[in-house]
Structure formats: C-alpha cells, structure tokens
C-alpha cells in the first residue's frame, strides 16, 4: 500500500523558495539577531528538503541528518547570541552597518 501524496517536486520547490527568502533576508537586514533568524530559516528550508527526500525514498538517513542540523542550529544559537551580547557590551549596537569591519 502506497500513500498518495503531493508530488516531491512541490516540496522541493517550497523549500527552495523558503531558502531564497532567507538568503535575501541575510543580505538585506542590518540587525544581527534578525540576520541570525534568517539563517535559521535557511537551515529549516534544508530540513524540509531532507525530510521530503527521506520520506519519498523510504530511507532514514535524511531524517537522521535533520536531527544533527537541529543540534547544530542550537549550538550556533547559543554561540551566536553570546557573541551578540559581547558585542553589545563593548559597542552598544547590534546593527551590522555600525560595525567598522562589517562593510562587506
């Protein structure tokens, strides 16, 4: 018995769109915390790709990868926010365009 479902390409397209929205956010926003949240959204788009491949191929590896991505996201959140705090302490700002060397 196979479960009828939405075709795989719709899931992939959805995650591609989400990934792109995240990318645009990273490139345009100035607040370091919001940039960080946009990066989280990009990682989530990747998770959706992984889960959908995993489900459609009936292979567990993709879903396992998702757990590790989540653990990495949690670790990055802790470190990233600590860095933002440290920066706020020495510079009283979280806006990347007020940071001298951030003119990328």
């Amino acid at each position, binding site marked *: 018995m196979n479960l009828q479902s939405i075709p795989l390409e719709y899931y992939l397209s959805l995650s591609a769109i989400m990934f792109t929205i995240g990318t645009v956010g990273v490139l345009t926003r100035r607040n370091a915390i919001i940039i960080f949240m946009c990066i989280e959204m990009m990682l989530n788009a*990747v998770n959706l790709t992984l889960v959908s491949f995993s489900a459609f191929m009936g*292979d567990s590896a993709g879903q396992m990868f998702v757990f590790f991505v989540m653990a990495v996201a949690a670790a*990055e959140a802790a*470190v990233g926010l600590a*860095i933002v705090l*440290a920066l706020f*302490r020495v*510079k009283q700002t979280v806006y990347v365009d007020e940071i*001298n060397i951030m003119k990328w």
Partner: protein
Amino acid sequence: MEQDFLLSAPITFLSIMATILMVVDALIKKSSKITFTLSWLTLGITGVLAAWTLKHNGTAFNGMITVGSFGAFFDILFCMGALLTLIAARPYMQRENLEHDEFHSLILFAVSGMMIMAHANSLLILFIGIEIMSVCFYILSGYMRSSVRSVEASLKYFLLGAFATGFLVYGMALIYGATGSFDYNQIFMAAQHELRFPSLMMIGIGLLLIGLSFKAAAFPFHQWAPDVYQGAPTVVTAFMSTAGKIAAFSAFMPIVAIVSPADTEMKIQIILAIISAATMLVGNISALTQTNIKRMLAYSSVAHAGYLMMGLVAISAHHARGVSGILYYLSAYLFMQLGAFVIVSILERSGEKNLEIEDYAGLSKRHPVLAALMTIFMLSLAGIPPFAGFFGKYYLFTAAIESGYTWLTIIAVISSIISVYFYIGLIVKMYFTEPNESGESTQQLPGIASITLAVSAVAVVFLGLMPAGLLDVIKLLFGN
C-alpha cells in the same frame, strides 16, 4: 567493535582528553599550568597514535569514518599545528593578560573537529566536523572580548560562517536526493553509474563548493579572511590560517574525488580552475597594498588557497600527482605560515601596536634572530628555493600542467612573481631601512615561543632540502 575503537583511537583519545581538560579547568583554580601540560601531552600522544594507525586503511563505525592512512596523515598535521600554537600562545596570552584556561580546551575541541573532518566518510560526519571546528573558531576569534575589533571579527566570522553553512547543508541535501545516500562510497558509485536526478546533483555540488570555498577562504568567498584574521588574537589567527585551511582541504579533496565521475562535461573542473586562478590573483594583488602585516599575511593565505586548488583541479582530472602535491604543500604551508604569524605575535604589543609593516623597519638591528627567521619564512612563502615552499609549488604546478591546465600554471607563475614583491619588500624593510624613532626598543624575549619558531624554521629548511623524505612517506601511503 573493539577494532573500531582501536583504530579510531586518535579521535576518541583527543575528544575524551578535551572533555577531561574542561572539567579540570573548572575544578582547579589557577589551573593554567596543569591544563597546558595536559594539552601538549594529549596532542603529542594523539600524534603518536595517529602515526601508529597510519598504515591501516579502512572504515569504522558502520562506514561512518575512515581510519588510518589519509585521515591519520592529517591528524599528525593538526596535532603539530595545535602543539606549536599552544606553545607560542603561552607568552602571548600572559602579555595580553588573557586567561588561558578555556583556550586549551577550545583548541583541543577545534582539533577534534578537524580530525573528524579529515576522517569523514559520510557527508553527515563532514558536516559535524566542520561545525565543531567553526564554532570553536567563532569563539576563539572573539577571545579578547574587551577588544572591540576582536568581538567584531567574531561576529563577522559567525554570521558569514553560518550563512555559508546554510549553502553547504543545502548542497549536501541535494546530493543526497540525487544519489540516495550520504556515504562517500555510495555517492561515488551512484555518480559513476546512474543518477536519479542529474540536475539536482550539479546544483548540489555547486552549493557544496560554495560552502567549502568559504571555509578555505577561496575567491569570491574570501572577504571574511583579512578582517577576521586581523581582528582575532594573533596566535588564534596563526592557528586558524594554518590548521583551519588544512582541514578545509582535507574535506575538499575526497569531495572532489567522489563527485568527479558525475562531471562528464568537465564543468566542475573548469569552475575549480577558474576559482583557483582568481583566488591566487586576488590574494596576491590585494596583499600588495596592505600596510598591516596581519592583513598582508591574511591575503597571502588566500593566495595559497589558490595554489592548493590547482591540486584539486588535478584530482578532478584523475591525476594522482594532485593528492601528493596538496599533501606536501599543506605540510610546508603549516610551518611557514605558522612561523610567520608567531613572529608577528612576538613583536606585537598590547593594544594592537607594532602591527604595521612600517614597524618592521630595521628589525635586523633590534632582533637579528627574529629577522633572520622571518626572512626564511618569507622566502619560503614566496616559493624561492631551497625552502619548502618552492618544492610545494613545483609539485602543484607540474600536476596542473600534466592535467592539461597550462594556462592555469602560467597564471600561477605570474601571481607568484607578484607575490615576491611584497614578501621581499618585508625583508628589505627589515634589513635595509633605518628603524623609525617611535619603534619599540624594549627587548622582549620570545620565551617558549622560540621552540615553535625553531621547529618551524627547521621543518621549512628540512622539507626544502630533502623533499624526498616526506614524498616517499606520501607515496608509500597513497601508492603514488
């Protein structure tokens, strides 16, 4: 299972010791002496364990990691780099009034991440390794947290690094979709025989290359390198720009090798060649105009990533010379770049003083030994015989020519000539310019950092005079 643990001993031992070190550091007050001793002992023993597994060749833990040979070779390089950094860091940290305790465990964690990268036999393991290393680097670059520049560097590195991780993981996900597995061997098989979605595979490889190029600081994802390398504490820069780059290439090499069968139209090969050419040109030309020595060395490390990528081009053209060329060059690069940065860290004074190239005027009169050592490292970085850098470049250039990339080699030669200008410029500054009045006159002995310098200088000269020794080892291990 016992066999798995035995052969992966370098990784497991180092990880366990890093954790123990963290506990020791938390329990004992004023523990810096104990943690320092423990950490260099750990790195030494790990190096020995890696040398012991060097002859083995296989996989462990359900094919998740490879053991022995390739990974073990890199383990030795990482341990060497970390050991030299730790020794050089001790006087530096004392002078800058930084606490050392967490520094040791963070360096060890970073090394364990690098080792996991080099041993990876699955994209999942590679991802975890890269993240362990990167997270440690984000923290280490912000280690001087009262210095604005250090924290800014840390934030820039973190935001761009996490952004690049997004691309990296997306690439991995698409490759998984196209091949049905994360395992290197199965990806290789799938790339050779049938791919479910060839277009997904190509996009996936492209995204993966973006992520890895960022970690290796290759054009056009190199902009973070000068800023981060300048802002981070100098010893951390020394570690990041050597061991970090070696780790990036240890991940790059197998990836290029396994995806190359899917590259029927030679697209990846051409892209790698273009990135390589652009990286070395941009790195060397930007280095010309720098006035800060850390930035100059940072751009030079970007340029060296370009030379190393010539080896990747050769690998994707199935040329065995690529592998041995990269391995030899990385070994030489470790010592010359580390040595140069350690000299910078010795001459630096707190408050980011003495970091301009101007400050090196007349160094030969004030510190004749340091000036002589710096000359050795600069000549080696410029690729002038008889030092190690020359032979490294020679092997990579011949590998590129033999893979049919003569144009790439011509560009490499041109950019090497450009690079001679600023490397020799520094030597001229040290020997033939009068010291300016404001120059620091107080003699500060390098302390135990001189061990690092001595080892690096001897290695650079030895590898240059007797390149056959290391090459024989490489040939023995990887069968030419």
